[in-house]
């Protein structure tokens, strides 16, 4: 099949099994070294490492001072009070005077708790902007990308024609296009959504394409022999078979979507966690930078967790070993 050649030469590196070592590890359990099983000792060691890491953090904050390294309690206080400030406002917005004029509401009003300035809130507000950009861009990029290979399934020539352009798009440094998107869509959320969407698009396209291709031809033939229509072959055989591949792409794309939103915010924005990080850095407010970083990391974990959960739910039919989470991405 000569028209496939270029595809082979340019397979997206991230989507290959070697790039996802976790998958290999699961696939070849017999090659795993039989490490001495000592779970209790390992748990103790891990706890020890955790204590050591926190000690190092405290040590750095104490020795270097909070100008260089935000102290753990400083970060926790800022984060906690910031989140509380947002929650208080949200409750006041939803419940109105019943909350803000109540005894508890009055007492816990951020100002009355002695929280001022940066301690008063806005973490959740900014986080929600970033999250919205990431999710909207993710959906906007992933849905067409996952659909396109199915539409092109019966059109091998069209697939071959667009292939070099798709490979180019995949390889292009999309995050480096951030200024272009800011130029086109302004410094608001639209430019971030567009950047995230285009980043996610190419990753998911190739994983969905691989899924459609890896499909077991015997299953299709069997269904056709059994009299299944083209539509029902697509629906009952091609799609379920491709889902695991699509999820590989989604799992790789998830951190990129949040990363893309944050990068665009770092470059130019007036809201969002990236803006918060930049604001903190400009004011030499290291604790503020730490707080925004912690919030960003939390969002990444939340995103990864959501994709994993959704995948587990959609792929209930798979034998348990296959659905194990992989390292990396």
């Amino acid at each position, binding site marked *: *099949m*000569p*028209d496939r050649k270029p595809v*082979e030469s*340019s*397979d997206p*590196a991230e989507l*290959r099994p*070697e*790039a996802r*070592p976790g998958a290999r590890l699961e696939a070849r359990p017999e090659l*795993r*070294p039989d*490490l001495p099983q000592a779970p209790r*000792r*390992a748990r103790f*060691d891990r706890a020890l*490492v955790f204590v050591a890491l926190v000690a190092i953090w405290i040590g750095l904050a104490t020795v270097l001072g909070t100008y*260089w390294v935000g102290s753990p309690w400083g970060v926790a206080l800022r984060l906690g009070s910031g989140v509380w400030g947002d929650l208080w406002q949200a409750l006041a917005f939803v419940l109105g005077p019943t909350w803000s004029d109540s005894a508890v509401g009055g007492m816990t009003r951020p100002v009355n708790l002695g929280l001022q300035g940066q301690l008063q809130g806005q973490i959740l507000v900014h986080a929600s902007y970033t999250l919205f950009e990431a999710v909207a861009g993710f959906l906007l990029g992933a849905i067409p990308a996952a659909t396109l290979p199915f539409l092109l*399934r*019966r059109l*091998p*020539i069209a697939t071959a*024609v667009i292939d070099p*352009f798709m490979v180019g798009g995949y*390889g*292009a*440094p999309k*995050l*480096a296009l*951030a*200024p*272009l998107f800011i*130029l*086109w869509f302004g410094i608001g959320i639209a430019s971030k959504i567009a950047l995230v969407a285009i980043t996610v698009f190419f990753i998911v396209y*190739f994983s969905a*394409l*691989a899924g*459609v*291709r*890896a*499909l077991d*031809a015997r299953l*299709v033939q069997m269904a056709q022999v059994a009299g299944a229509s083209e539509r029902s072959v697509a629906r009952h055989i091609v799609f379920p078979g491709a889902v695991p*591949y699509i999820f590989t792409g989604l799992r790789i794309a998830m*951190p990129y979507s*949040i990363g893309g939103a*944050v*990068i665009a915010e*770092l470059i130019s924005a007036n809201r969002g*966690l*990236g803006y918060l*990080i930049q604001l*903190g*850095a400009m004011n030499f407010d290291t604790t503020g*930078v730490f707080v925004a970083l912690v919030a*960003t*990391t939390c969002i990444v974990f939340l995103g990864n967790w959501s994709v994993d959960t959704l995948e587990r739910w959609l792929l209930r039919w798979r034998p348990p070993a296959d659905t194990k989470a992989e*390292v*990396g991405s």
Partner: protein
Amino acid sequence: MSTTQSALDLAEPTPVRWRQYAVTVGRILLALLLLAGWKVGADVAGPLYAADPVKVARRIIEDTASGTLLRHIYVTLRLATIGFAIGCGFGVVLPFLLRRLPRLTAAVEPYIMASVGVPKYALVPLFILWFGIDDAPKLWLVGLLVFYPVFIAVFAGIRNVDRRLINMARVVGASEAAISREVVWNSLLPFFFASLRIALPRAISAAIIAEFLVGNEGLGFLIENSRQNFDTTGVFAGVVVSTAVVLVINGVLVRLDRYFNAWRPVDRDMDI
């Protein structure tokens, strides 16, 4: 080649040569269409939003002739190379050290894997705060972005080494160093190359993004500075050159991968 593809071929008995021809023509047409779309888009959107492809080409030629563009490319590639070397070095050496220390590995592994989730780009303002506005913060970013994929691939590659080959090598009298070099290293080369193919383009793109945020030279600076000066042609020229640099390096990596992994039984196609 996947079996699906052959099934599709059976379903559509088009002569192969005719199809090859159609694909080539189709690609050329699509490329022309995209260029025409760019041109029309630029005319419609106006010079503030989109630069005319002819102007962009002229700008690239002019800047190349004057040497400024080459200087920017050099600065970015230098940054990417040094950062890549640092990240790659740690990413390869650390798993080999951990190989000898299984207890330490078990203890730190969950923390290393968790730190993968920290968005590295978001650390740049912190790096600037800590390390100043010279190369250091940019190198940290590039180094970290390269380190993780390499480390994870090599780490998993070492774990995946066929125990039977290691036993064989021990029986015939190979030292631990010889086993590391011959068996472990060769076994994980495909993993390592797969990670390089992720890491090297990422290093360049990281260098460009770092230059958006700090510094006064390099492709990233060129793009972002042009944007701030409403020089749309400059933005487009920078973006085109950056993309071209990354794509060329991608292509070189594909060739190198083929060359070094020639012993592998099947030339992999892109099926996962």
